[in-house]
């Protein structure tokens, strides 16, 4: 089953995609690493971030890995490059 989520891009990832946000359709049962691979397929320049990036799903951090996400329609997913606040 597929679901439509809203993806937000920040900092470097926004520069690499040329986008602040987009809606994409992905399987609702998917690992965080598979979700990242979807994003890389859409935006190949993102690949340089692979070893530094985490995702945020519904505003909670999720490292790239095998653990399954359960995505629902309208969920917010964010690409989080290395932080530099403060």
């Amino acid at each position, binding site marked *: 089953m597929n679901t439509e989520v809203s993806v*937000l891009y*920040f*900092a*470097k990832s926004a*520069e690499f995609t040329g986008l602040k946000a987009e809606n994409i359709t992905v399987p609702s049962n998917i690992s965080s690493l598979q979700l990242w691979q979807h994003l890389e397929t859409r935006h190949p320049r993102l690949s340089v971030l692979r070893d*530094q990036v985490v995702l*945020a799903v519904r*505003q909670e951090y999720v490292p790239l890995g095998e653990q399954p996400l359960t995505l629902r329609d309208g969920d917010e997913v*964010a690409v*989080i*490059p*290395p*932080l*530099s*606040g*403060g």
Partner: protein
Amino acid sequence: MAADGGQDLIILTTDKLSADSVSQSVTCPSCGAVSLFIGTTRDNFEGKKVIRLEYEAYSPMAESELRKICSEIRTKWPSVRRINIQHRLGVVPITEASVIIGISSPHRSDSLEAVKYCINTLKATVPIWKKEIYESGEPCWKENKE
């Protein structure tokens, strides 16, 4: 925790930050100590002249992570009274503050330790990004190291 929540003030703003306003907002009659940390814009990085910084945030999540930090502080230092965390977004000119943290407590060691914990944790967990703009050369998105 609901009562404490009212004492946590979190502000993300494009306006200039003020140390007096933060210190006043956390001062209270039962507190003997106010500790403040002010992060300011430096004019150099590895020999390159920085002309300004630009900050970007994932604002709703940044606020939620900042609230988590406040709640952790209240667990670790229960005597802490008021917490005010202000982070500036957008363009921040050289020497102006990008972040001000103010924490009050009846005795000084709690607010001093809590401020240190707060800025360290903020840098590690709050989704905010800083781009340095140099006099010459490409702008650079920074990464917090520590």
